[in-house]
């Protein structure tokens, strides 16, 4: 007890000492004391007890001391809100200090103190500072608006700060404008690019440029933009270089390959990428990840630069592995000798991870470059001779792949492989070896002995090996039935009787039955001709690659995942794709394989412009050009840019900026920005309404009477690709409800809760909670009657309750439900006429455009439009989550007094038609 007493006193002593020093008369001493306080704060000591003393030091004309105090305040104000109020007066006073540094300091700090109470005091000073004569203060105030918005968005709007911000855009000082982020529009960007020398600005502006996408598909502007961007390739800042690379990669997509300029660009892209590899390892790594993408898209850029990807012995391992990967991607007949020589060297290095990857790389070379296969195999054999355990195992795994690629070519090496049977201890290598023995059983004299040796420890093997062994022995039996009958029975009984693994058991039974009923069929099944393995197994899928190319220079390019996969909540995330290639350059390509936005020129008269703009907003495939500068639409698109919330970087990464390519005249530029800014802050709601489909009002699903006081009402929503069930739980009983859980019965579309039902606090009487329960469509499926019936069980601490509800089918309409025109025509013809269903929707006064755009927001896509005898015919497609396509023909008669819309639906599963029609009706009428 005495001990602890001493302890607290000494501890107190320290604080007391600081307290005394803080209250000292001498400025120097005070300053030192505050510094000490801040130092202890950094190492995590609690010095909040000194709050009043430190705040007292604020009243000083010493700038250094003042800054220190502010620093302290920023850290502790949140935990001591009442104390922070004490400081407010000083803040307000400091905002009028003659020294601009102090004014800025006060505004900045006030914004950082995220205490609700302080915001009301903040407005007046902030307003003044936004109009301050000093640019530094103005800039600081501008950022402060963003901070305030995060605390209290409503306040920012009410106080009219947005308008003030708009005025600031025209500020003469570039530093302010930079902070004003919004000023970075494509128009000013191009010209600013050549003038901007400030370090910060240079990073950001070209990033914007990349998002700038031309609408005009004349050749002129593209070439001129490329020319303006190319000087940036030799910039000292790698972020700038990469942004420039991204721009050029995007524009190259639109240039014809036979153009001279295309070749020039290719040549210009290589040196900057090579230069990046001489940077520090961290940058190198990020650069290599990007180069990996670029090489997959356009290997021709770096095909002569193989040498720079040679691994240096002092590279960090992650750089080495990445280089190795790129070497393989660049490997071709021309350079394979060089690559192989390198890889062989790597395979003798010390680092085990690296050696394994190098051996694997040799195998990949063999598969990729056919002419080199023989040399690769002999290299691998050399490596096997070294008898180094992990090298041998790795080599056997890749040799298996080589056998699959070039069957009946290199079987002569099998003998060598068999020598190493005993040293294999990794499952993958054992499985590979067993596969080889089974596959070539007829050429290996002692195949049965070899396989039998594996059989001894059957139950200790991993599943992979067990499965392979089962198949291998069955193959052996089919090839040499006479000698191996015993063996096959042994393995079948091991697999079926003694194993707990259902996969193994099932496979065992299938073989058993096959063999016992029809050995000929068994032979056909087990020894069937295998498809050759593909060139490269780990290529990124083309559509994803195209999307990732648009994200060059962002985190997405490092992870090789689209941003939606890792950015929280998908805020400000839009899908990007490369602009469609021009028709001239890709004339050889068949129209089916052309990207979604078909070549411009044949489209505008068929597809309503309105629908497409909406389409652009939703899935942003930068479709056909829109004639004239689309001022109204660009304002909407600006709105989608999360300017202040997402910040500069999200501007770089996350958005597609569409604006006329020719530097717009200032007057016309003002309009989109202005409206853009006003959209700027209510972004989340804006995006929500834009991309979500129609949501029905909540209906009562489970009345309180039936559920011992629990009332459940709800509705279904679909937003940006995810379905959720919005529930409202009301406790109408007299006791507290807890322990909520929810379960669905099996249903037609496999709807299932994707997360547990989370009711955070107990639900007290007369309380209501709103919950959005995410749903997935991967649950088990059972056809229900009616089709869209969903049976739900909800449990709480009182009881379990059941109810059923009908969900509107449109929540199942997926975002990629747009069929290409040819496809549509072919499918329509292909589906038999008896599958066609006709419906009428009455009292629907919409015209074709309005209907189309309305339907599009619920993922019903207009494929084509036609006008026949005064009737607008819309051809539409949609896809359900389980992959069922529904094609529709919507007939709208604008002049028709009864406002009837006629709908015919064609679908391979006609039972959904009725429900699709209901979905149409709900969407169109709401």
């Amino acid at each position: 007890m005495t001990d602890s007493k001493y302890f607290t006193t000494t501890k107190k002593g320290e604080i007391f000492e600081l307290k005394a020093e803080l209250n000292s008369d001498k400025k120097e001493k005070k300053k030192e004391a505050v510094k000490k306080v801040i130092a202890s704060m950094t190492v995590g000591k609690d010095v909040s007890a000194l709050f009043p003393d430190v705040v007292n030091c604020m009243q000083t004309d010493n700038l250094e001391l003042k800054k220190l105090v502010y620093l302290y305040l920023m850290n502790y104000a949140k935990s001591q809100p009442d104390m922070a109020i004490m400081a407010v007066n000083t803040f307000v006073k400091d905002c009028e200090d003659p020294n601009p540094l102090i004014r800025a300091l006060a505004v900045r700090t006030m914004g950082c103190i995220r205490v609700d109470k302080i915001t009301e005091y903040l407005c007046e000073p902030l307003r003044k500072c936004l109009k301050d004569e000093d640019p530094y203060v103005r800039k600081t105030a501008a950022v402060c608006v963003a901070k305030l918005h995060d605390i209290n968005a409503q306040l920012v709007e009410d106080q009219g700060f947005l308008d003030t911000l708009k005025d600031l855009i025209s500020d003469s000082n570039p530093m302010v404008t930079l902070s004003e982020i919004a000023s970075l529009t494509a128009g000013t960007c191009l010209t600013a690019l050549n003038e901007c020398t400030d370090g910060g600005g240079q990073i950001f502006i070209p990033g914007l440029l990349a998002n700038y996408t031309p609408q005009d598909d004349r050749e002129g502007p593209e070439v001129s933009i490329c020319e303006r961007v190319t000087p940036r390739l030799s910039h000292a800042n790698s972020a700038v270089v990469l942004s420039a690379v991204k721009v050029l990669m995007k524009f190259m997509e639109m240039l014809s390959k036979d153009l001279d300029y295309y070749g020039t660009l290719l040549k210009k892209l290589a040196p900057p990428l090579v230069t990046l590899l001489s940077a520090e390892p961290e940058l190198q790594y990020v650069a290599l990840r990007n180069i990996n993408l670029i090489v997959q898209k356009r290997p021709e850029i770096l095909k002569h630069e193989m040498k720079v990807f040679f691994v240096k012995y002092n590279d960090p391992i992650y750089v080495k592995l990445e280089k190795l990967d790129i070497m393989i991607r660049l490997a071709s007949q021309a350079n394979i000798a060089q690559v192989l020589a390198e890889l062989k060297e790597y395979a003798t290095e010390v680092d085990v991870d690296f050696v394994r990857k190098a051996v694997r790389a040799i195998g990949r070379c063999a598969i990729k470059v056919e002419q080199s296969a023989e040399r690769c195999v002999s290299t691998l054999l050399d490596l096997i001779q070294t008898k180094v355990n992990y090298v041998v195992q790795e080599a056997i795994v890749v040799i298996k792949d080589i056998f699959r690629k070039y069957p009946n070519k290199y079987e002569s090496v099998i003998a060598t492989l068999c020598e190493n049977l005993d040293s294999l201890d990794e499952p993958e290598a054992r499985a590979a070896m067993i596969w080889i023995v089974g596959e070539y059983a007829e050429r290996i004299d002692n195949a049965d002995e070899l396989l039998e040796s594996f059989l001894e420890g059957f139950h200790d093997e991993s599943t992979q090996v067990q499965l392979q062994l089962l198949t291998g022995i069955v193959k052996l039996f089919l090839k040499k039935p006479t000698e191996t009958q015993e063996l096959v029975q042994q393995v079948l009984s091991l697999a079926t009787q003694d194993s707990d693994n259902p996969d193994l058991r099932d496979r065992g039974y299938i073989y058993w039955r096959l063999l016992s009923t029809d050995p000929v069929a068994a032979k056909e099944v087990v020894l069937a001709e295998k498809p050759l393995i593909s060139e490269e197994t780990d290529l990124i899928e083309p559509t994803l690659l195209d999307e990732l190319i648009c994200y060059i220079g962002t985190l997405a390019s490092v992870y090789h995942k689209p941003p939606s996969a890792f950015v929280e909540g998908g805020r400000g995330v839009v899908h990007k794709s490369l602009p469609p290639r021009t028709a001239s350059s890709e004339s050889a390509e068949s129209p089916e394989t052309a990207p979604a936005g078909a070549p411009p020129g044949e489209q505008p008269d068929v597809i309503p412009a309105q629908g497409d703009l909406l389409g652009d907003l939703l899935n942003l495939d930068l479709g056909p050009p829109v004639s004239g500068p689309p001022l109204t639409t660009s304002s909407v698109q600006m709105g989608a840019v999360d300017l202040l919330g997402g910040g500069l970087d999200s501007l770089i990464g996350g958005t597609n900026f569409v604006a006329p390519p020719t530097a717009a005249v200032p007057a016309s530029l003002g309009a989109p920005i202005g409206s853009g800014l006003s959209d700027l802050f209510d972004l989340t709601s804006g995006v929500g309404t834009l991309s979500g489909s129609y949501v029905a009002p909540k209906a009562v699903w489970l009345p309180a009477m039936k559920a011992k006081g629990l009332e459940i009402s709800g509705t279904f929503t679909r937003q940006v690709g995810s379905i959720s069930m919005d529930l409202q739980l009301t406790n109408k009983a007299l006791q507290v409800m807890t322990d909520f859980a929810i379960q669905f019965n099996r249903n037609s579309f496999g709807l299932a809760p994707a997360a547990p039902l989370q009711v955070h606090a107990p639900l007290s009487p007369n309380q209501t909670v709103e919950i959005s329960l995410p749903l997935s469509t991967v649950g088990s499926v059972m056809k229900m009657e009616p089709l869209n019936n969903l049976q739900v069980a909800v449990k709480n601490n009182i009881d379990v309750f059941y109810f059923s509800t009908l969900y509107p089918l449109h929540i199942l309409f997926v975002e990629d439900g747009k069929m290409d025109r040819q496809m549509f025509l072919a499918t329509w013809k292909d589906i038999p006429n008896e599958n066609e269903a006709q419906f009428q929707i009455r009292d629907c006064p919409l015209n074709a455009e309005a209907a189309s755009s309305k339907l599009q927001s619920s993922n019903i896509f207009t494929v084509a439009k036609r006008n026949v005898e005064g009737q607008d015919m819309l051809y539409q497609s949609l896809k359900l989550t389980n992959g069922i396509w529904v094609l529709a023909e919507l007939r709208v008669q604008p002049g028709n007094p009864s406002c009837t819309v006629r709908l015919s639906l064609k679908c391979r599963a006609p039972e959904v038609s009725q429900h699709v029609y209901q979905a149409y009706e709900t969407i169109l009428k709401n």
Partner: protein
Amino acid sequence: MISQFFILSSKGDPLIYKDFRGDSGGRDVAELFYRKLTGLPGDESPVVMVTTGGRRHHDGRHFIHIRHSGLYLVVTTSENVSPFSLLELLSRLATLLGDYCGSLGEGTISRNVALVYELLDEVLDYGYVQTTSTEMLRNFIQTEAVVSKPFSLFDLSSVGLFGAETQQSKVAPSSAASRPVLSSRSDQSQKNEVFLDVVERLSVLIASNGSLLKVDVQGEIRLKSFLPSGSEMRIGLTEEFCVGKSELRGYGPGIRVDEVSFHSSVNLDEFESHRILRLQPPQGELTVMRYQLSDDLPSPLPFRLFPSVQWDRGSGRTTLEPKPRPVSLNVRLHLPLPRGVVSLSQELSSPEQKAELAEGALRWDLPRVQGGSQLSGLFQMDVPGPPGPPSHGLSTSAPPLGLGPASLSFELPRHTCSGLQVRFLRLAFRPCGNANPHKWVRHLSHSDAYVIRI
């Protein structure tokens, strides 16, 4: 947009922690980072990491970091930002902190906590980069750096290179180049100094048959200026300097590089005609020019190495033959040996050399090598061969796995591999009533990866 910035010591202790957005889970994020970093499997990259799972608060947080002078400089973000700009920002911050605190290190950072926070406040506001220019920041920074050792001119006798991180880091930075650029305004007079370094890193790859597989030189001209900002200076480079394959200048063979990039503040008006760079550098450190050259080097390689290995007895002779001109320092030959080698006997050609076994490799140190000489070392060791009949052992003539490649590390003072020299450094600035500013121009080449396969 940046959520947090922190500096961790090499042991993972937080030295600086700054939260810009208030949307994070507090300072245990720093701990989380360190745990993640140390727990990473060998073949994964630590540069960019994302948190998944675990507590909701930290989900989807991306860590991007660099290591600098033993410290981890980390930023976190939760958006899809450009990792390049963040990495650039981090290295810029490292330079800035170096400029303001003298040098970057655990000691200097913890002595200057207040200053670092003040800097951070100006560089980043609410996670947005405001400015990183030393010049601009000077107007806002009030706190003075705490320097551990008073600076004295006598230290200049052993002036090291401030920027070059050589292989062994043997060249300790002298206190001249590692004092804060912007400290006490009082003794302005003392330090009218400019350091200009031409540093080249040489990577070479030589095949086992002696043919040259790859050579490349990465060069930098770095400037550290203690002069008041805005004083103009002119740097004259070798006049035969040409860029690209086609250009030819002067009568001689010319000094050729493949690619050059300049800092944006360099004025190139006189570059075309006279190879003169004009600039008005801000105080602090600046990379004026970067260049690279690959494949055909104008001068012969600085070293030739003739390794010969005999496997029957496990002995090898290595002969090192430096080229005539330069004196090289701190030469070290590093040769990984097969596993299990324990004993080593050696015959070296001079007493000041040293050879030892360390971490499964042979290390042969030559502190100073005179140009044009020939040095040789004979090493013998016993390799525990794979068990088996001896006849097998002899038939495999290939060296056992794990031997080589040999790598050399070295420094060549007063030598550039590309041949680029600084002809002159002229300052337009005349200090009022003071002696001429001191100018230090240094050239150095050092090895990046000089590898000879065996």
